[in-house]
């Protein structure tokens, strides 16, 4: 099994994927800090940082551009980053989408027409996949600048792994409006609906929803038509970048049955899509009492504890507590063993369930002890 440092050797992009609530943001930040401490220039792109984490990185105003973490904080945490730098930013999907439009729009009038369009606002704000798409977009933009050795992307949480991989493609297809062009023809003034069936659909939809979509859609596609090529080209290059040798995907999950199942599924989907897979990081693993015999099957434990403490009640609670912990540790060990079988030779890294929340650089380095396998 390769170590995390070996996995990241020579990589310029590391994408942390996984469902919500598994500690993905913290893991992404820890990886970035760990590589910065190893002398790399690293930027972490996050979606939703813990307030206290952002504060302690000295980044109260984490916005849509990168900010550098004060090197003094590394020294305070007992590390010398040398040439290393840690930068962080929080993605704003809507703002990024607006930036893309501003950049690609041929003129100011087109730009404003798009930004004011109701369909555009729906897409950029809420349409499933826009956050994922914009995360990729930002990643690509920063990567093109070649200012960093490594970019770590903390992806938006998704219940379904497919969402994340499909979203950019679906969104681009939507913007291209290819399926719509079969039914509509752009004219000088707007759009002409082709075929009687189509006009029925429009009129029924208008009747039900009360929205005159023809107007909004024709506006939108007219305005976007000059930009479609740019979007397509960009999407193609993003996909090439993700599939390239210099990228790696890490799956972050928790130790319970469901998250482990999701990690296995995600791994399979990445393989199917020919995307480079680095390994799995299992967070919040219960380790207390792992590998110990069942206290129920070991009656001497209770009596040993009783003799030791001289308190039957306390001994009973100690044994009960141990039993509860051991049951969770056993469950986690079973799930992780299953995960390792599925992953074959791929790396599986375990991070124990820590008593305290991580809220500063020092905490991130504690996690790094497990991630990077240090002492």
């Amino acid at each position, binding site marked *: 099994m390769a170590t995390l440092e070996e996995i990241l050797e020579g990589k310029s992009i590391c994408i942390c994927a996984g469902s*919500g*609530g*598994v500690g993905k*943001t913290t893991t992404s930040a820890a990886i970035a800090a760990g590589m910065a401490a190893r002398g790399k220039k690293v930027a972490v792109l996050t979606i939703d940082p*813990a*307030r*206290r*984490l952002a504060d302690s990185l000295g980044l109260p105003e984490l916005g849509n551009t990168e900010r550098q973490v004060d090197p003094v904080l590394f020294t305070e945490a007992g590390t010398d980053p040398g040439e290393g730098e840690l930068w962080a930013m929080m993605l704003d999907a809507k703002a990024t989408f607006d930036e893309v439009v501003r950049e690609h729009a041929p003129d100011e009038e087109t730009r404003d027409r798009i930004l004011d369009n*109701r*369909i555009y606002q*729906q*897409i950029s704000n*809420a*349409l499933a996949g826009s956050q994922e798409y914009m995360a990729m977009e930002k990643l690509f933009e920063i990567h093109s600048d070649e200012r960093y050795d490594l970019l770590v992307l903390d992806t938006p*949480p998704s*219940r379904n792994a497919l969402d994340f991989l499909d979203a950019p493609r679906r969104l681009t297809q*939507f913007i291209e409006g290819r*399926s*719509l062009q079969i*039914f509509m023809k752009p004219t000088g003034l707007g759009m002409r609906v082709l075929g009687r*069936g*189509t006009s029925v*659909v*429009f009129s*029924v*939809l*208008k*009747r*039900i*929803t*009360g*929205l005159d*979509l023809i107007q909004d*859609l024709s506006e939108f596609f007219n305005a976007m038509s000059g930009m479609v090529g740019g979007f397509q080209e960009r999407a193609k290059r993003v996909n090439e970048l993700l599939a390239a040798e210099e990228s790696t995907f890490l799956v972050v999950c928790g130790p319970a*049955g469901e998250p482990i199942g999701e990690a296995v599924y995600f791994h399979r989907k990445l393989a199917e899509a020919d995307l480079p897979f680095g390994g799995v990081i299992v967070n919040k693993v219960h380790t*207390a*009492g792992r590998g*110990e015999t069942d*206290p129920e099957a*070991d009656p001497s*434990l209770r009596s*040993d*504890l009783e003799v*030791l*403490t001289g308190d039957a009640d*306390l001994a009973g*609670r*100690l044994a*009960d*507590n*141990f039993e*509860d*912990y*051991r049951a*969770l540790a*056993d469950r986690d060990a079973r799930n992780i063993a299953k995960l390792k079988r599925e992953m074959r030779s791929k790396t599986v890294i375990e991070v124990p369930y820590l*008593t*305290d*929340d991580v*809220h500063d650089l020092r905490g991130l380095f504690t996690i790094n002890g497990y991630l990077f396998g240090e002492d």
Partner: protein
Amino acid sequence: MRAEAGPDRPAARIPPIGDLYDKRIVFVTGKGGVGKTTVSLALGLAAAARGKRTIVCEVASQESASRVFGRGEIGFHETELRENLFAISIDPDHSMREYLELQLPVKAMSDLLYRSKIFSYLAAATPGLREMVTIGKIWELALDKRKAKGALPYDLVIVDAPATGHGIGLMQTPQNFAEIARVGPMAHQAGTINKAITNHRQAGAVIVALPEEMPVNESAQLEAELLDSVGIAIDGIFMNGLYPERFTDAELERIAELRQGDHPTAVLAALEAAGDEAGRARSQREQLARLRELTRTEVGVLPFIFEPTLGVEQLEQLAAEL
């Protein structure tokens, strides 16, 4: 439960949790991974035990209810899990189809529309339409006179809502939709639904949190948005997965001392586990105090369940706490 509101803290203007079971619609929301599904099902069990005809709605096709209750996929069918407790998995496609069937007098026409490629394209492009038909179905389930053919009404509809951002999006949809579409049956309905879910006697939301930094922060923001932007009542915040405090400070000191000694490995491991539990229980209580400090609603507590997997038995244990 919570200590009385201090002088500088806004007084709790939220009804006590007991009222929750007298509502018609309750949305269960919170950060990803906090146990929304578990709390939804436990609330469902608790309501059913009180004799309420209850349905739990999943809106993200997760099929958790079918898994926990050991059944085949439920899908878009109102399925009885046990006496008074039903479940359904609501997806926009089926909701749209049902909506079209109810709106259009001729079935052939709704079929044609539903199968039309351009329709599905436009439906995806229409601002909020997918969320609108989803919440429309939720609302339909809670009607005294159901629109779906031969369907019986429910006393309580519990929605296992999406995580924070998307959950708020879902609840705000009727309001937004009513604003952008001023005419037509759906705009009219959007207004009706918005009135229903912001009626504090009929509907409310429950926030699920975990005793950790981020879920606590997010719960506080969520509460503010639900109250101020959505205008929905909050029927309770539940701190989920709280570890018990099993040892007194004096005992912990003794345990720490004993850990220095030479013991069989199992004994040592048991002492370590006690220290671990105490540390976590303490840090969790700090987070519980923070949550109570940061929010206006009463915060209830659900214990951590020390079981490898959650089944019906564990849900009933939680239901008893609710």
